[in-house]
């Protein structure tokens, strides 16, 4: 494991009192949201994994408990941060009763998330602030691609026997290929959690490598199903394997586990991302998903990212919320910000 800390897009030459690059990164202006080098992956390095396996749950819990109390975002900043949450959103529908029409409605919402008066009131009409992607099951990829054509909104598909991942690998790879063929440019895959319990790291690594190959140009988000993984150590190790195998993003949950995205899990994963970055120089994205439904919760996550990874990660190419009802709560908060009135769900267009 390398002992130096590298930071995105910033070189720090040695000087007498050496300011570390991370500080600057924390406060740096937003870099361009595109053009990061895609993670090529690396060979499975069990030694590297060993060096990051110490994850102390109670310390992580204390960190997140104090983190959300250490930072408070008020007034116009709060509105701006909530807009950021929307821009970093994979607006999602993953229900067994989804239909094409339902998906089209979701896409319409993704393209046009806010009421006109809110856009004008906030003074953001000059910039398209809207969810980065729409996330659907494979059968609805084509529908979503059609609905979103020309908008720049990505289409993500959950494509490997979601949410359990327990079909033959060949089946899962074919599913990925089919989704890519239908136009999905982001593929959210799940790992078979049993491989983690069995410490079958090589097998897990190989599966993800082949998934990445199946993705082609589409970006690969690897869902760990952290609610199933039992320990934060498993979360850390599975994160490392996923990144070494070439994940572009690592993602917490399917939303179907009994425990979804929690801040301690998120902390373990962003620290994995940091360790991978320090080791390889590649920036990996992070996507918490499941159970994040309030504006307040979204702010906690943004604070976590800013504190642990820095400003650079608060861009849609490196951070996404997997969410369905979060958008409406944010709309209500934004309306409240403008009017001082607490809002109601029915005052905002449903997805």
């Amino acid at each position, binding site marked *: 494991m390398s002992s130096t800390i590298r930071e995105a897009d910033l070189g720090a030459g040695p000087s007498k009192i050496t300011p570390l690059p991370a500080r600057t990164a924390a406060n740096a*202006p937003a870099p361009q949201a595109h053009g990061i080098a895609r993670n090529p992956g690396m060979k499975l390095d069990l030694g590297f994994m060993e060096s990051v396996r*110490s994850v*102390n749950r*109670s*310390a*992580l819990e204390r960190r997140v408990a104090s983190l959300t109390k250490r930072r408070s975002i008020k007034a116009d*900043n709060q509105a701006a941060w909530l807009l950021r949450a929307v821009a970093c959103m994979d607006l999602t529908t993953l229900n067994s009763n989804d239909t094409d029409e339902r998906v089209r409605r979701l896409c319409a919402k993704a393209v046009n998330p806010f009421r006109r008066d809110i856009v004008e009131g906030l003074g*953001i009409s000059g910039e398209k602030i809207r969810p980065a992607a729409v996330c659907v099951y494979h059968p609805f990829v084509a529908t979503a691609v059609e609905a979103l054509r020309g908008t720049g909104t990505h289409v993500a598909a959950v494509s490997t026997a979601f949410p359990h991942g327990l079909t033959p690998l060949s089946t899962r790879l074919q599913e990925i290929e089919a989704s890519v063929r239908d136009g999905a440019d982001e593929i959210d895959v799940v790992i078979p959690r049993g491989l983690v319990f069995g410490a079958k790291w090589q097998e897990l690594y190989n599966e993800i490598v082949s998934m990445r190959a199946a993705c082609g140009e589409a970006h690969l988000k690897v869902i760990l199903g952290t609610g199933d993984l039992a320990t934060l*150590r498993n979360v850390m190790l599975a994160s490392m394997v996923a990144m070494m195998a070439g994940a572009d993003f690592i993602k917490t949950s399917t939303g179907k586990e009994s425990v979804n995205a929690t801040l301690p899990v998120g902390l373990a994963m962003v620290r994995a991302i940091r360790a991978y970055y320090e080791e390889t120089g590649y920036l990996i994205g992070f996507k918490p998903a499941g159970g994040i439904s309030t504006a307040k919760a979204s702010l906690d996550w943004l604070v976590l990212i800013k504190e642990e990874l820095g400003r650079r990660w608060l861009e849609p190419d490196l951070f996404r919320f997997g969410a369905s009802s979060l958008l409406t709560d944010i709309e209500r908060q934004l309306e409240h910000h403008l009017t001082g009135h607490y809002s109601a769900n029915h005052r905002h267009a449903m997805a």
Partner: protein
Amino acid sequence: MNILERYHAMEYGPAPEARSEADAWLAARDFSKALFIGGEWKAGGKTFDTSDPSSGKLLAKVSDAGAADIDAAVSAATKALPRWSASSGYSRAKVLYAIGRAMQRHQRLFAVLESIDNGKPIRESRDIDVPLAIRHFIHHAGWAQALDKDFPGHKGVGVVGQIIPWNFPLLMLAWKIAPALAAGCTVVLKPAEFTPLTAILFAEICERSGVPKGVVNIVQGGPEAGAAIVNHPGVQKIAFTGSSEVGKIIRKATAGSGKKLSLELGGKSAFVVFEDADLDSAVEGLVDGIWFNQGQVCCAGSRLLVQEGIAEAFIAKVKTRMSRLRVGSPLDKNTDIGPLVDSTQLDRVKGLVAEGAKQGAVCWQPDVALPSSGYYHLPTLATGVSPANILAQEEVFGPVLATMTFRNTEEAIELANNTRYGLAASVWSENVNLALHVAPQLKAGVVWVNGTNMFDAACGFGGYRESGFGREGGREGMFEYLSARLPLGPAIKPVPAGAQPVEQTEGDAIDRTAKLFIGGKQVRPDGNYSLAVATAKGKLAGEVGLGSRKDIRDAVAAARVCKGWPEATAYNRSQVLYYLAENLSGRADEFAARLSQLTGAAAKAAREEVELSIERLFLYAGVADKFEGRVHQPPARAVTLALHEPVGVVGIIAPDNAPLLGLISLVAPALAMGNTVVAVPSERYPLLATDLYQVIEYSDVPAGAINIVTGRSAELAGVLAKHDDVDGLWVFADAETCARAEADSVGNLKRVWTGNGRSLDWASIEAAGDAFLRRAVEVKNVWVPYGD
């Protein structure tokens, strides 16, 4: 900045806590009458200023208590004492509960006032100081009611004088007042001059919470008021939290007064990071350890010890993290580090950092924004610090971290203990075997495993070594406000320098030379002088070595290097003590005859003293593996192991009355708990001790566990008191010897226990048991958070 610009910037921006309520509170009060004495608000002769450290602006001119005011406060406390101490535990519990709840109802006002007055970030006062203070009152309500059951034979010590520092004004007040009230004591408390405000609000809470008048007296003032409390004859106990320097002054001032004393002083706590630690979490631990409250924390983890293999990576992580600390207004919710409490403190910290750099430390500070006014100091990381560097030695009391590396576990422990202090330590390792191997070896009253600065009312807090003595919180803390009846008798008269007996007793036994017993061997005294020992009839019974300071030096060295005894299992110690009893029993007739010969005791009485001595050895042999620590349960997912550890090297000045039983009654509990002992036996009847050498030699006692130096008690007590490698000293001698031992103990603040010149009825059942065992142990609280 418009919202779109903010959307791109993603900065936190200011998040100010409103201070209007606090300002209204300040405006509505006449602080020239801020002495809360006997339930009334009184003016002092003068006033002093308290100001806002973030701006230097004056907050209030506060009445300054003089000696007469202290006198009035002690009188009020004395007057209130009988009724309060006699009130039922239930009624005191109701009062403590009411205080806690009333504080809860005014939490935010307390927090804002604390931040305004002290400069600590509102996040800390709001989330840590105030909730913990409340927790102390509610927790101690339970102790008030449980007193009779849990502390049988104990009662409150009486009127208590309490002096607290400025770093945690309200929390330290709670730590002091809650246990005192629970124990049935009445208090005179003096807050620090820098931070008087929350104590005034607390007094108002007392007025409204049914605290009887005079039970809580709060006197604002400076060193003069503090000295008046310390020296007041109407005060039965002093509890002090503050600098080691002032602590030593108080130790000296109270010497011989009979006042109970607890001192919670400075620290230079080690923060030990092993290579298998969760490094990112350890970095956060440091943030809570040294950058909490601007580093103005007595138990701040100010010495980072990091294993060589990970040092470079870890330091890099620390620097990155430091760069994200936000230094700013205490009332901004996004502030991590506020101003230091006062310009004098800022100057002191700057001076120490400059001196540390001069001595070779590389002092690094992150390039973070600093407010233009106020007493701010950047978080500072000192690397290349040698153990001799001032930053490794001195308590900085500021946001300054000194870093050293270690090669292996042994060296980590050695470095951690390489300090005069012993307040706290943090150990970071994911290996529970390693962490629990290291924790008991650290000379610190509190050890946090994979955590730092965790506090709770149920867990004792307090130091080893020059970090003071006594514990605050938990069961162990309650004892500081309680006293058990000791069977004290008449005053002990100083040993007269009488005429030496010359005429030998009759008989044709072979001449015996009684030497000293040091390091398991009988050795001649360094000075090669002897002391004649008289029989009851004034004849020469024999001669013993006249021990000198050099013999004490050798005995302490032997006691210090003896590891076989403190590290033996309690069961093993138990068996050795039983064996001592067995072997003494085998020679009971001989010892009884010696007692009669020397003291003139009747044969039956002499026999009884020997039998009782054997019984006492049996008693302590039996409890050696039973006087155990506890497991505290703080409101967190953690267990706190309150371990009973030996005090260390304990000096014992044994009494003349009951020369065998007195000696055994003191040495046996010390040994039972794993201490090594340097005993000075009765000056008049030392042959009882020298006769014991062979018993000891036959009983498998490891060399150095018991050392006996015969000679002049008063002189040798003085040598022990001034010996800075002696951890405890128990003196049962005349009043002057006792007082001097207390006064002379300030060199290393050893724990001194005396009979204040009174003799003890050693045959009494109260001259044995827990009261003695408690003196023989330090309570170390090891916090072990868990969860996987």
